């Protein structure tokens, strides 16, 4: 019991004093996850919107693949990328294994299906009369697409935040491709895994508390967005 209390004390001490190591780990975590999310959004939102607007053969299949991707186990993504990037792998010459870049790629793969699939569903949900209205007011096909994305904005934000929640929390993929190298590829979740293993609970706990707080903030934002959507769609 005592050691628990002591660990919490130490953890708060680390947080309150903005411990350098702690700070570096947090910053790298945010950098990796936000970069991955940015890439996933830049690609996933237009792709999802396209799927939501167009009907073509194979569309349902793509959506089923995306939905499968939403539940992709991070370790499997890690394994797959490890095989690609390892010295003898087909992309080994890029020397990406155990770099932050590899971690960004891994998290990008994890976030993309969520962002794309939820964007697709949100754009699909926009009433057909909106599209017709844009058209009758003189919008070009591109302007119509932008209008539909704008109408679906709350749903799309929900998808992006869902993606962020997933990549911030995952450990399997980045542990395998990042390698948890101190000062280079150590992020919050991998540090927690490693330090717990070593019995160093203070740092692990401090990071756990921060991770939870970030998750809380994401959910606070989600709640706010959903409330706003309900209010304006009465």
């Amino acid at each position, binding site marked *: 019991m005592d050691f628990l209390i002591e660990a919490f004390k130490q953890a708060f001490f680390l947080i309150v004093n903005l411990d350098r190591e702690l700070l570096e780990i947090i910053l790298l975590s945010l950098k990796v996850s936000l970069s991955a999310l940015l890439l996933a959004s830049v690609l996933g939102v237009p792709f999802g919107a396209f799927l939501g607007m167009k009907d073509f053969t194979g569309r349902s299949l793509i959506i089923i693949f995306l939905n499968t991707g939403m539940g992709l186990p991070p370790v499997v993504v890690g394994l797959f990328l490890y095989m690609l990037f390892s010295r003898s792998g087909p992309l080994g010459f890029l020397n990406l294994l155990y770099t932050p870049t590899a971690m960004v790629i891994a998290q990008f793969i994890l976030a993309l299906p969520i962002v794309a699939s939820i964007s697709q569903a949100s754009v699909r949900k926009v009433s057909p009369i909106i599209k017709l*209205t*844009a058209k*009758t007011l*003189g919008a070009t096909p591109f*302007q119509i697409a932008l209008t539909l994305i*704008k109408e679906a904005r709350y749903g799309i934000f929900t998808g992006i935040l869902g993606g962020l929640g997933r990549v911030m929390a995952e450990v399997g993929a980045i542990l395998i491709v990042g390698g948890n190298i101190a000062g280079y590829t150590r992020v919050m979740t991998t540090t927690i895994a490693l330090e717990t293993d070593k019995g160093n609970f203070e740092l692990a706990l401090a990071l756990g508390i921060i991770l939870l707080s970030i998750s809380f903030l994401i959910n606070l934002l989600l709640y706010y967005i959903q409330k706003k959507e309900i209010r304006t769609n*009465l």
Partner: protein
Amino acid sequence: MSLKLVISNLWKGYRDKTVLKDLSYVFDEKKVYVVMGPNGSGKTTFLKICALLETPDKGEVHYYNSTNKILPKDINLLRKITYVFPEVGIFNTSVFDNVAYGLKIRGFNKKEINSKVEEVLDFVGLSHKKKQNALTLSSGEAKRMGLARAMVIKPEFLFLDEPTAFVDAENVKLIERLLIQIKEQKTTTIVIATHDSPFAFTVGDEILKLENGKILG
């Protein structure tokens, strides 16, 4: 520039029934044409084909310019025509931004947009609602917003499908006054589908009766 719409030998049907049968008509003046007919007679179908929102099975729909040349059905032509649905499509944003939509996509600058939107909102009596989310408007207000949003782009052809549906007597009077004012400017050909006879006779210059897929009188 003044546009003329020529409809010739138009046929349109859906699986089990023919709605429009060899219909021909010319809209060549800046006045109010009112298409009347019972439910299901094809008024909406006819208006949508005229507004290039649907294609006929057979026959021709052509817009001519003042030198009598057929205009290609491209974005330039589409931007001279607009159509207001019975249930006004509302973007999830303010009344102001809804009305500004057509101007924004045409690349007007902020200042022009501001003055045009303020003017038209004043015209339809919605100035005090400009910051309100348009989804929260009453259906009568939404109708007026739809009219304002269509008018602000100064179309050559304005198609209005059931502009008085869901509107109370007082607001019908208001819409009548607005339409008569637009009509007096002689810049727009207005085509209305309705089965509200008093309204039709108040605003209409021509009454087109749609019966058995054809226009009578």
